[in-house]
């Protein structure tokens, strides 16, 4: 990572990218696909305010033709059309995982998982049984 970034928080933010998000119980809750930055009103370096996750956020981060195609696909598939947002103040620990303090059910990143579960997987017999 380049050393010319003046602000520690932004550097930490860039270090977050492409890492697995994990909730307090160890459930996997998405990947850090993009970051939400806010300009410092006093003219300092921008500050990370949230982690963005999901195909839409990824598409934005990827850019290019492929990114635009993915973005269009995501807008068709999701009603919201906005990427899932994980406010930065729930981030507890940044290591090989990004650990957050709220359970995955309470995160916006779980919308897709919940939708697939509700619409498809729960209708298949045995969905709630552990493997034998």
């Amino acid at each position, binding site marked *: 990572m380049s050393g010319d970034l003046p602000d520690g928080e932004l550097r930490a933010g860039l270090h977050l990218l492409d890492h697995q998000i994990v909730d307090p119980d160890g*459930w*996997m809750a998405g990947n850090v696909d993009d970051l939400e930055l806010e300009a410092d009103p006093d003219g300092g370096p921008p500050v990370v305010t949230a982690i963005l996750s999901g195909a839409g956020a990824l598409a934005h981060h990827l850019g290019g033709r*492929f990114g635009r195609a993915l973005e269009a696909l995501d807008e068709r598939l999701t009603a919201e059309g906005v990427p899932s947002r994980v406010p930065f103040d729930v981030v507890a620990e940044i290591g*090989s995982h990004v650990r957050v303090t709220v359970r995955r059910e309470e995160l916006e990143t779980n919308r*897709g998982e919940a939708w697939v579960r509700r619409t498809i997987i729960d209708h298949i017999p045995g969905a709630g049984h*552990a493997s034998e």
Partner: protein
Amino acid sequence: MKRLLAVTLGILTAIGGFMDAGDIVANATAGSRFGMNLLWAMVLGVGGIVVYAEMAGRVAAISGRPTFDLVRERLGARMGIANLVASLFINLLTLVAEIAGMAVVIQLATDVNYLLWLPLMGLFVWIVIWRVRFSTMETVFGLVGLTLLVMAVALWQLHPDWSALWHQSSHPHVTGGEGTPTYFYYAIGLFGAAMTPYEVFFFSSGAVEEHWSRKDLAENRANVFVGFPLGGFLSFSLMALATVVLQPRGIGVDQIGHAALPTVVSLGKVGLALILVGFFAATFGAALEVSLSSGYTLSQYFGWQWGKFVRPREASRFHLTMVVSIVLAVLVALTAVDPVKVTEYSIVLSAAALPLTYFPILVVANDPDYMGDKVNGRFGNAVASFYLVVILVVALATIPLMIVTKAGQ
């Protein structure tokens, strides 16, 4: 027996890697066309997969991070997605070949056209993924796959001229009537088949499924050093059988049934029964390995919950990925596309994508932030670097060779 049960993850991974539908045909073809003159390529591949699977398993045991997680993190979102798209495409082609391979074996046993069996085979694969515990799956398919050792017995019973086989293996040359580019095209096929990336995706994720930790590093090594050489030994047996039985008679191999022929010539009906069981277990095992590999790679790229260690509803997108993969593979196979051609392409394409998977493993296996004191040693790094160069050369040469040789014709 307990020792054997401890290494079934390695055995299943290796059988799925070395004895899947495409490799069965590739090994038999290599023997029937080039004798033992291509054995070196397979042996080189066994060395490579041993070195990199050991690293991938060690990283998974120490850091809890499976391979595709590392691919995304180390290559970034963009290169990561290139690898993801390539891997999913290759996995789909391979799955088509495995499900078709299973159905062809049933056709050989029942004389009912394989197309009719395809949907049932797809259903079998899905049921095992949906319901059967990872460790049970690994034990059953690993052990039943060992039936393939019948090929070694068949080879022994034919009393081949061992010194001639050894001479060909140790002094390889391009056999008469074959072009040099074609020879190297098949060499890449054998090397690529040994090192197919879905093996490390599956093996490293399997290590996480089995909750390996620091204390399981010996188990990791045992799995790697027993499983992959065993897979290589099975490949060798098949290649030698084809050299002894098929090559002198000028019999070409265009489907799995031809690969069973030498064993039947040697051992008769018993040989036929055992080799069909072995081929079925191997293609079934490979179908499971490849389907799960698709679920693992996609989920790990996007950070979705994955794994058979949780209930299906807790990892819904992971399971949906596999349902979609299996359905797609059955539909493609139902078009009566030649499953052998499909796997040949999938092996060669995966050879072109090898560096995208193996480079991140090597980088993370050297990162003390993840590995602590279990980083690679100097010797391990020397061997791994050598293989990285081989992989790069192979990746660059693959597509041009495929075009020049019209895919080995």
